């Protein structure tokens, strides 16, 4: 049966991660990524913050444990930076 092409999966994962971090970890919407310098990646920093909050391994990467936590039903209040 059909399998989503890898790129499409990655797109969905990135969308889940970004919206979760925008909703609950004050990740600012980045309208000018081309202006950001190479070493700066707010999404990685926020991902680490979320992983630390939930006691997950702090990798800065959307690994399986992190994605599983993001898919859990939860309260709509942000975890940080209310």
């Amino acid at each position, binding site marked *: 049966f059909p399998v989503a092409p890898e790129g499409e999966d990655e797109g969905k994962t990135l969308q889940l991660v970004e919206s979760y971090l925008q*909703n*609950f970890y004050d990740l600012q919407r980045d309208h000018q990524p081309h202006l950001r310098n190479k070493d700066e990646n707010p999404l990685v920093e926020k991902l680490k913050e979320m992983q630390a*909050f*939930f*006691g997950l391994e702090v990798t800065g990467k959307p690994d399986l444990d992190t994605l599983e*936590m993001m898919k*859990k*039903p*939860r*309260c*709509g*209040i942000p*975890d940080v*930076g*209310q």
Partner: protein
Amino acid sequence: YVFTPGNPKWKRNSLTYRILNYTPKMRKTDVDEAIRKALSVWSNVTPLTFRKVEDKEADIMISFAYRDHRDNSPFDGPNGQLAHAFQPGEGIGGDVHLDEEEAWSKNGRGYNLFIVVAHELGHSLGLSHSTDPGALMYPTYSYTDPNEFLLPQDDIDGIQAIYGPSNA
């Protein structure tokens, strides 16, 4: 436990609440009971008291809402975000909003209304999310039988740090 930034708290111990509308997925009496029990989770361990009002403005207004309900925090349909609440204060302060598109229940099926409301009331009283996975104020939903529910120590310590222990 974590206080809400700015340490907002109610200046009075006797508070009022009002249930603005009801989900058709539960009997009205079961919704009333779930919310009454959720309030007693916090009143049992603090000097706070909650009185139900039927038709005027209450400190804590509890309602079921759909998607965009004009508070800049639209709900997202089934699962995902189940509910949210506002920190102590006038107007919308203290209010609890529940996503009407969730499968609310009084038992282990769907999402248990008592557990979710008890968590949101923590926000209504000035607590933020705890990093303690066993705490009621942990951000993600997990079911506990309401008849066996005991407020975890992390949450007791947090709410008593704001309002002090119960007078009883």
